Protein backbone atom coordinates (compact mmCIF):
# COMPACT_ATOMS: atom_id res chain seq x y z
CA UNK A 1 0.00 0.00 0.00
CA UNK A 2 1.28 3.43 -0.89
CA UNK A 3 0.06 6.82 0.34
CA UNK A 4 -2.28 8.54 -2.05
CA UNK A 5 -2.90 12.27 -2.70
CA UNK A 6 -6.35 11.77 -1.26
CA UNK A 7 -4.80 11.01 2.13
CA UNK A 8 -5.71 7.34 2.06
CA UNK A 9 -3.62 4.42 0.93
CA UNK A 10 -3.97 3.09 -2.57
CA UNK A 11 -3.43 -0.43 -3.77
CA UNK A 12 -0.49 -1.01 -6.06
CA UNK A 13 -0.05 -4.03 -8.27
CA UNK A 14 3.14 -5.67 -9.37
CA UNK A 15 3.56 -6.99 -12.87
CA UNK A 16 2.94 -10.72 -13.20
CA UNK A 17 6.69 -11.17 -13.42
CA UNK A 18 7.03 -9.31 -10.14
CA UNK A 19 4.42 -11.63 -8.66
CA UNK A 20 6.34 -14.67 -9.84
CA UNK A 21 9.56 -13.34 -8.34
CA UNK A 22 7.73 -12.77 -5.09
CA UNK A 23 6.38 -16.35 -5.06
CA UNK A 24 9.89 -17.64 -5.74
CA UNK A 25 11.25 -15.59 -2.86
CA UNK A 26 8.50 -17.06 -0.64
CA UNK A 27 9.32 -20.57 -1.90
CA UNK A 28 5.87 -21.11 -3.30
CA UNK A 29 7.38 -21.56 -6.75
CA UNK A 30 10.76 -22.90 -7.82
CA UNK A 31 12.48 -22.09 -11.10
CA UNK A 32 13.41 -25.14 -13.13
CA UNK A 33 16.99 -24.57 -14.15
CA UNK A 34 18.66 -27.23 -16.28
CA UNK A 35 20.71 -29.57 -14.19
CA UNK A 36 23.25 -29.94 -16.98
CA UNK A 37 25.72 -27.08 -17.05
CA UNK A 38 25.81 -24.76 -20.03
CA UNK A 39 22.28 -25.40 -21.29
CA UNK A 40 20.54 -22.53 -23.03
CA UNK A 41 17.52 -21.35 -21.06
CA UNK A 42 15.11 -20.33 -23.83
CA UNK A 43 11.95 -20.35 -21.77
CA UNK A 44 11.12 -20.07 -18.09
CA UNK A 45 9.38 -22.73 -16.06
CA UNK A 46 8.34 -22.43 -12.44
CA UNK A 47 7.30 -25.46 -10.47
CA UNK A 48 4.93 -25.64 -7.51
CA UNK A 49 6.08 -27.04 -4.22
CA UNK A 50 4.71 -30.59 -4.44
CA UNK A 51 6.32 -31.31 -7.79
CA UNK A 52 9.52 -29.58 -6.69
CA UNK A 53 9.63 -31.78 -3.60
CA UNK A 54 9.29 -34.83 -5.82
CA UNK A 55 12.13 -33.61 -8.04
CA UNK A 56 14.44 -33.09 -5.07
CA UNK A 57 13.18 -36.01 -2.98
CA UNK A 58 15.84 -38.11 -1.29
CA UNK A 59 17.44 -40.69 -3.52
CA UNK A 60 17.41 -44.36 -2.69
CA UNK A 61 14.67 -46.22 -4.51
CA UNK A 62 16.07 -47.12 -7.94
CA UNK A 63 12.73 -47.15 -9.78
CA UNK A 64 11.67 -43.83 -8.26
CA UNK A 65 15.05 -42.25 -8.98
CA UNK A 66 14.88 -43.42 -12.56
CA UNK A 67 11.41 -41.99 -13.07
CA UNK A 68 12.19 -38.68 -11.37
CA UNK A 69 15.42 -38.28 -13.33
CA UNK A 70 13.54 -38.77 -16.59
CA UNK A 71 10.71 -36.50 -15.49
CA UNK A 72 13.16 -33.70 -14.82
CA UNK A 73 14.76 -34.17 -18.23
CA UNK A 74 11.30 -34.12 -19.83
CA UNK A 75 10.34 -30.92 -18.03
CA UNK A 76 13.57 -29.31 -19.14
CA UNK A 77 12.57 -29.89 -22.76
CA UNK A 78 10.28 -26.87 -22.35
CA UNK A 79 13.17 -24.82 -21.04
CA UNK A 80 15.91 -25.73 -23.49
CA UNK A 81 14.53 -27.00 -26.78
CA UNK A 82 14.07 -24.72 -29.75
CA UNK A 83 10.97 -26.51 -30.99
CA UNK A 84 8.07 -27.97 -29.02
CA UNK A 85 5.64 -30.57 -30.22
CA UNK A 86 1.92 -31.07 -29.45
CA UNK A 87 2.67 -34.57 -28.22
CA UNK A 88 4.76 -32.91 -25.54
CA UNK A 89 2.71 -29.83 -24.70
CA UNK A 90 -1.05 -29.80 -25.12
CA UNK A 91 -3.90 -27.45 -24.26
CA UNK A 92 -6.57 -29.24 -22.26
CA UNK A 93 -10.30 -28.97 -22.82
CA UNK A 94 -11.99 -26.58 -22.23
CA UNK A 95 -9.65 -24.03 -23.76
CA UNK A 96 -11.04 -21.16 -21.69
CA UNK A 97 -9.48 -22.73 -18.61
CA UNK A 98 -6.06 -22.13 -20.22
CA UNK A 99 -4.69 -25.27 -18.54
CA UNK A 100 -1.93 -27.04 -20.48
CA UNK A 101 -0.32 -30.41 -19.89
CA UNK A 102 3.22 -31.61 -20.35
CA UNK A 103 3.51 -35.30 -21.02
CA UNK A 104 6.28 -37.35 -19.54
CA UNK A 105 5.62 -40.79 -20.91
CA UNK A 106 8.83 -42.72 -20.46
CA UNK A 107 8.96 -45.04 -18.57
CA UNK A 108 5.84 -46.17 -16.78
CA UNK A 109 4.12 -44.63 -14.92
CA UNK A 110 3.26 -41.95 -17.45
CA UNK A 111 3.03 -38.54 -15.79
CA UNK A 112 1.02 -35.46 -16.67
CA UNK A 113 2.24 -32.10 -15.43
CA UNK A 114 -0.41 -29.39 -15.57
CA UNK A 115 0.16 -25.67 -15.66
CA UNK A 116 -0.71 -22.29 -17.11
CA UNK A 117 1.09 -19.51 -18.95
CA UNK A 118 1.27 -16.10 -17.27
CA UNK A 119 3.17 -14.72 -20.26
CA UNK A 120 4.75 -15.84 -23.49
CA UNK A 121 7.38 -18.51 -22.80
CA UNK A 122 6.73 -18.57 -19.07
CA UNK A 123 5.05 -21.71 -17.75
CA UNK A 124 3.87 -22.18 -14.20
CA UNK A 125 3.43 -25.81 -13.28
CA UNK A 126 0.58 -26.05 -10.79
CA UNK A 127 0.15 -29.78 -10.18
CA UNK A 128 0.80 -33.22 -11.59
CA UNK A 129 -0.82 -36.63 -11.75
CA UNK A 130 -0.10 -40.14 -12.87
CA UNK A 131 -1.87 -40.78 -16.17
CA UNK A 132 -3.13 -44.16 -14.94
CA UNK A 133 -5.03 -42.42 -12.14
CA UNK A 134 -6.90 -40.11 -14.51
CA UNK A 135 -8.90 -42.54 -16.61
CA UNK A 136 -10.73 -41.40 -19.75
CA UNK A 137 -10.84 -37.80 -20.94
CA UNK A 138 -14.30 -37.19 -19.56
CA UNK A 139 -13.55 -38.75 -16.19
CA UNK A 140 -14.15 -37.13 -12.85
CA UNK A 141 -10.44 -37.47 -12.07
CA UNK A 142 -9.48 -35.38 -15.09
CA UNK A 143 -11.96 -32.71 -14.09
CA UNK A 144 -10.58 -32.69 -10.56
CA UNK A 145 -6.99 -32.36 -11.66
CA UNK A 146 -7.84 -29.51 -14.04
CA UNK A 147 -9.83 -27.84 -11.31
CA UNK A 148 -6.84 -28.21 -8.99
CA UNK A 149 -4.66 -26.48 -11.58
CA UNK A 150 -7.03 -23.52 -11.77
CA UNK A 151 -7.31 -23.35 -7.99
CA UNK A 152 -3.53 -23.39 -7.64
CA UNK A 153 -3.30 -20.54 -10.14
CA UNK A 154 -5.82 -18.49 -8.19
CA UNK A 155 -3.99 -19.21 -4.96
CA UNK A 156 -0.75 -18.03 -6.50
CA UNK A 157 -1.79 -15.13 -8.69
CA UNK A 158 -5.36 -13.97 -8.17
CA UNK A 159 -6.52 -11.54 -9.63
CA UNK A 160 -4.11 -12.07 -12.53
CA UNK A 161 -5.45 -14.21 -15.35
CA UNK A 162 -3.42 -16.75 -17.31
CA UNK A 163 -2.70 -16.15 -20.96
CA UNK A 164 -5.59 -17.60 -22.90
CA UNK A 165 -5.23 -18.77 -26.48
CA UNK A 166 -5.62 -21.86 -28.61
CA UNK A 167 -2.81 -20.61 -30.83
CA UNK A 168 0.41 -22.06 -29.43
CA UNK A 169 2.62 -19.24 -30.69
CA UNK A 170 0.63 -16.88 -28.44
CA UNK A 171 1.91 -18.66 -25.36
CA UNK A 172 5.20 -20.26 -26.34
CA UNK A 173 7.79 -19.93 -29.06
CA UNK A 174 8.95 -22.72 -31.33
CA UNK A 175 5.68 -24.59 -31.83
CA UNK A 176 6.01 -27.23 -34.52
CA UNK A 177 3.10 -27.90 -36.84
CA UNK A 178 0.41 -29.98 -35.23
CA UNK A 179 -2.79 -29.98 -33.28
CA UNK A 180 -2.19 -28.56 -29.82
CA UNK A 181 -5.86 -28.47 -28.89
CA UNK A 182 -8.89 -30.59 -29.60
CA UNK A 183 -12.28 -28.97 -29.20
CA UNK A 184 -14.86 -31.36 -27.79
CA UNK A 185 -18.60 -31.39 -28.26
Amino acid at each position, binding site marked *: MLPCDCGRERLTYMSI*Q*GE*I*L*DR*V*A*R*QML*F*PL*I*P*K*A*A*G*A*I*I*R*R*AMFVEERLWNA*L*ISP*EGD*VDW*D*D*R*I*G*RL*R*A*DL*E*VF*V*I*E*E*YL*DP*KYLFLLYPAHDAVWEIRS*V*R*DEPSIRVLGLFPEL*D*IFVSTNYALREDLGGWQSREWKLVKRAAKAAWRRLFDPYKPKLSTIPSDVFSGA*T*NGNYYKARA
Partner: protein
Amino acid sequence: METTTKREPKSARDIAYYTQRYRNRVFAKLVSFVADQLEKGGLTKKDIAERLKKDPAQITRWLSQPGNMTLDTISALALAFDAEAEPPDFVLFEDRTVPNFIHPLIARVTQTKVAAPKLEAFPNSPSQPIAGANSNEWRVVVGGS
Protein backbone atom coordinates in the same frame (compact mmCIF):
# COMPACT_ATOMS: atom_id res chain seq x y z
CA MET B 1 38.92 -32.14 -8.82
CA GLU B 2 40.04 -34.86 -6.45
CA THR B 3 40.59 -38.29 -7.85
CA THR B 4 38.15 -39.76 -5.35
CA THR B 5 35.36 -37.70 -6.94
CA LYS B 6 35.84 -39.50 -10.23
CA ARG B 7 35.39 -42.83 -8.52
CA GLU B 8 32.13 -41.94 -6.84
CA PRO B 9 29.25 -43.89 -8.37
CA LYS B 10 26.73 -41.85 -10.31
CA SER B 11 23.28 -41.79 -8.81
CA ALA B 12 20.46 -43.65 -10.52
CA ARG B 13 18.64 -40.33 -10.82
CA ASP B 14 21.52 -38.66 -12.61
CA ILE B 15 21.93 -41.60 -14.95
CA ALA B 16 18.22 -41.54 -15.80
CA TYR B 17 18.26 -37.76 -16.18
CA TYR B 18 21.15 -37.67 -18.61
CA THR B 19 19.85 -40.68 -20.52
CA GLN B 20 16.48 -39.06 -21.02
CA ARG B 21 18.00 -35.64 -21.69
CA TYR B 22 20.15 -37.08 -24.44
CA ARG B 23 17.24 -39.00 -25.90
CA ASN B 24 15.07 -35.86 -25.87
CA ARG B 25 17.74 -33.75 -27.50
CA VAL B 26 18.43 -36.23 -30.27
CA PHE B 27 14.72 -36.70 -30.83
CA ALA B 28 14.14 -32.93 -31.01
CA LYS B 29 16.89 -32.65 -33.59
CA LEU B 30 15.46 -35.50 -35.64
CA VAL B 31 11.91 -34.15 -35.55
CA SER B 32 13.16 -30.71 -36.46
CA PHE B 33 15.15 -32.12 -39.39
CA VAL B 34 12.22 -34.15 -40.69
CA ALA B 35 9.78 -31.25 -40.27
CA ASP B 36 12.18 -28.98 -42.09
CA GLN B 37 12.60 -31.42 -44.94
CA LEU B 38 8.87 -32.06 -45.23
CA GLU B 39 8.23 -28.32 -45.28
CA LYS B 40 10.75 -27.84 -48.07
CA GLY B 41 8.57 -30.16 -50.07
CA GLY B 42 9.43 -33.14 -52.13
CA LEU B 43 8.54 -35.86 -49.66
CA THR B 44 5.51 -36.70 -47.57
CA LYS B 45 5.29 -39.16 -44.69
CA LYS B 46 3.76 -41.60 -47.16
CA ASP B 47 6.76 -41.15 -49.44
CA ILE B 48 9.12 -41.78 -46.52
CA ALA B 49 7.25 -44.96 -45.70
CA GLU B 50 7.48 -46.13 -49.30
CA ARG B 51 11.17 -45.33 -49.54
CA LEU B 52 11.87 -47.31 -46.37
CA LYS B 53 9.36 -50.06 -47.21
CA LYS B 54 7.51 -49.38 -43.97
CA ASP B 55 3.92 -48.82 -42.99
CA PRO B 56 3.09 -45.06 -42.80
CA ALA B 57 1.80 -45.65 -39.28
CA GLN B 58 5.29 -46.83 -38.34
CA ILE B 59 6.77 -43.52 -39.52
CA THR B 60 4.19 -41.66 -37.42
CA ARG B 61 5.09 -43.82 -34.41
CA TRP B 62 8.79 -43.12 -34.88
CA LEU B 63 8.15 -39.40 -34.90
CA SER B 64 5.66 -39.36 -32.07
CA GLN B 65 7.85 -40.08 -29.02
CA PRO B 66 11.50 -40.18 -28.09
CA GLY B 67 10.84 -43.62 -26.62
CA ASN B 68 10.25 -45.05 -30.07
CA MET B 69 13.62 -43.97 -31.37
CA THR B 70 16.68 -46.14 -31.87
CA LEU B 71 19.91 -45.53 -33.74
CA ASP B 72 18.46 -47.67 -36.52
CA THR B 73 15.36 -45.50 -36.88
CA ILE B 74 17.46 -42.33 -36.92
CA SER B 75 19.64 -43.76 -39.65
CA ALA B 76 16.66 -44.98 -41.68
CA LEU B 77 14.77 -41.69 -41.43
CA ALA B 78 17.82 -39.71 -42.44
CA LEU B 79 18.40 -42.03 -45.37
CA ALA B 80 14.85 -41.43 -46.58
CA PHE B 81 15.94 -37.85 -47.20
CA ASP B 82 19.26 -38.91 -48.72
CA ALA B 83 21.06 -37.84 -45.57
CA GLU B 84 22.86 -39.40 -42.62
CA ALA B 85 23.32 -38.40 -39.00
CA GLU B 86 26.78 -37.44 -37.81
CA PRO B 87 28.07 -39.27 -34.74
CA PRO B 88 27.57 -37.44 -31.43
CA ASP B 89 30.07 -35.06 -29.88
CA PHE B 90 31.28 -35.76 -26.37
CA VAL B 91 31.73 -32.81 -24.04
CA LEU B 92 33.28 -32.86 -20.59
CA PHE B 93 31.18 -30.98 -18.08
CA GLU B 94 34.21 -28.95 -17.10
CA ASP B 95 34.59 -27.82 -20.71
CA ARG B 96 31.00 -26.70 -21.04
CA THR B 97 30.70 -23.07 -21.93
CA VAL B 98 28.42 -20.59 -20.29
CA PRO B 99 24.93 -20.61 -21.83
CA ASN B 100 24.70 -17.93 -24.47
CA PHE B 101 21.12 -17.17 -23.60
CA ILE B 102 19.12 -17.14 -20.40
CA HIS B 103 15.46 -16.21 -20.32
CA PRO B 104 15.24 -12.69 -18.82
CA LEU B 105 12.96 -13.76 -15.97
CA ILE B 106 15.23 -16.63 -15.00
CA ALA B 107 18.16 -14.20 -15.13
CA ARG B 108 16.27 -12.00 -12.67
CA VAL B 109 15.48 -14.97 -10.45
CA THR B 110 19.06 -16.16 -10.32
CA GLN B 111 20.11 -12.71 -9.18
CA THR B 112 17.77 -13.03 -6.23
CA LYS B 113 19.46 -16.25 -5.18
CA VAL B 114 22.58 -17.12 -3.32
CA ALA B 115 25.06 -19.14 -5.31
CA ALA B 116 24.54 -22.86 -5.16
CA PRO B 117 27.40 -24.99 -3.91
CA LYS B 118 29.70 -27.09 -6.09
CA LEU B 119 30.04 -24.43 -8.75
CA GLU B 120 33.78 -24.81 -8.63
CA ALA B 121 33.24 -27.95 -10.68
CA PHE B 122 32.34 -25.69 -13.58
CA PRO B 123 35.21 -23.25 -14.07
CA ASN B 124 33.46 -21.58 -16.98
CA SER B 125 30.41 -20.70 -14.96
CA PRO B 126 29.24 -17.10 -15.18
CA SER B 127 30.37 -14.65 -12.53
CA GLN B 128 26.77 -14.59 -11.32
CA PRO B 129 26.24 -18.32 -10.87
CA ILE B 130 23.02 -19.96 -11.83
CA ALA B 131 21.64 -21.08 -8.53
CA GLY B 132 20.26 -24.57 -8.53
CA ALA B 133 22.07 -25.63 -11.68
CA ASN B 134 24.21 -28.03 -9.74
CA SER B 135 22.26 -28.45 -6.58
CA ASN B 136 18.75 -28.78 -5.39
CA GLU B 137 19.50 -26.52 -2.48
CA TRP B 138 17.93 -23.10 -2.72
CA ARG B 139 18.37 -20.23 -0.37
CA VAL B 140 16.45 -17.07 -0.91
CA VAL B 141 17.70 -13.57 -0.41
CA VAL B 142 15.17 -11.76 1.70
CA GLY B 143 12.91 -9.47 -0.27
CA GLY B 144 13.48 -10.88 -3.72
CA SER B 145 13.47 -8.17 -6.34
